[in-house]
């Protein structure tokens, strides 16, 4: 956006300054809300760290609300940024843009399951007859049986994917390791 196409900046009045201070405050509150909705649960639920019961509840509660919450906060932030834009200098604009990038990042990642970036789920599991399996007889497997339907889930595979939603003999099961 080039500044020459905009109407001239109105002269500063105390009332203007006060309203711009309000806009700044609101802008930062809403951006903190958006970023916190993503960042706090991500920080609490991180691998190889201890999770205490209460923070874990907070994390789950925030994560549950983050997809909608970050979306609303982002929209409010954008509206406020528009309102602020003409009243601020170049540094102010840089700060607003940087904050909006972080807010947008939070809104996007709050909709992603980054745990599945590390451990990809199995989409459309395939099964082999045991004569077709190249598994070593010493390999460990998880086994279930429903009536005459027996299935084996090699642990080396389950230790990567971790969860498989399967149906054996019409029984829906979640296999997890």
């Amino acid at each position, binding site marked *: 956006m080039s500044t020459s196409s905009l109407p001239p900046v109105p002269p500063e009045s105390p009332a203007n300054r006060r309203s711009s201070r309000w806009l700044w405050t609101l802008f930062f509150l809403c951006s903190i809300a958006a970023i916190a909705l993503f960042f706090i649960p991500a920080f609490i639920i991180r691998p190889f760290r201890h999770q205490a019961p209460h923070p874990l509840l907070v994390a*789950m509660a925030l994560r549950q609300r983050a997809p909608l919450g970050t979306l609303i906060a982002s929209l409010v932030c954008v509206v406020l940024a528009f309102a602020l834009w003409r009243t601020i200098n170049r540094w102010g604009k840089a700060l607003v843009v940087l904050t909006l990038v972080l807010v947008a990042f939070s809104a996007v990642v709050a909709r992603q*399951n980054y745990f599945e970036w590390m451990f*990809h789920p199995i989409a459309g599991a395939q099964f082999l007859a045991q004569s077709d399996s190249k*598994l070593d007889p010493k390999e460990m497997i998880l*086994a279930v049986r429903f009536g005459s339907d*027996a*299935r*084996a889930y090699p642990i080396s595979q389950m230790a*990567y994917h971790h969860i498989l939603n399967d149906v054996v003999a019409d029984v829906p099961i979640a296999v997890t390791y």
Partner: protein
Amino acid sequence: MNGRVLHFYLAGINNQNFLMRDRETGTWWQQITGKAIYGPLQGSALELVLSDELTFGEWRTEFPSGQVLAPVAKYVKEYDPNWEPDVAKLPVVISFPGTELKSRDVVIGLTIDGAARAYPWETFAKQSPVLDRVNGTPLLLALGPDGKSFRVFVSRIDGRDAEFFLQGDTTADAAAGKKDWTLLDTTTASQWNFQGCATSGPAQGKCLDRIPALKDYWFDWRNYHPDTTVYKH
């Protein structure tokens, strides 16, 4: 859950035990307990399906027509053939100093009507078959012929408590494949296989009831079963 099929995905981690969520309601579930800990279905629990941790070799002979999950070609590189020692090297984030075992000690964990008990794997493997009693239920824990598979049974034949021992040779010999793996019970003197079924003798054709059991690290088992007792002998 209540007649509705839920599909689960990995959603987080709670002290190195996974958190799952279901696509249908967004509820959070704890992997080890199957309990809904947060969200619309909070307070519900999934029904545990009886499962086995066996070697492929053992399972293949028991279920010749069984099916094996195929590796996903795209991720074969990611599978760690050395998962067991590699996982054991990962740091632990909770520990229970002053308890009987070390964090990464492997245990067999089971619960009978709410009473939890852990069997240190090494003790179990050395002593198998292990006879024990939890909450009044007589138990038989058996290490399979391959020395790696395990199963837990109610050691009762027709409502009567029974004792079992390994026929003839030691567990180590059976594990090394030197001898057929057969259990003998002292009540009927029948022979039993690793599936818990009598193959000959007066009890032939009968099978023992199974108890679900989990092979787990001590820190994880102890964390979710704070009142657990530990088997020692």
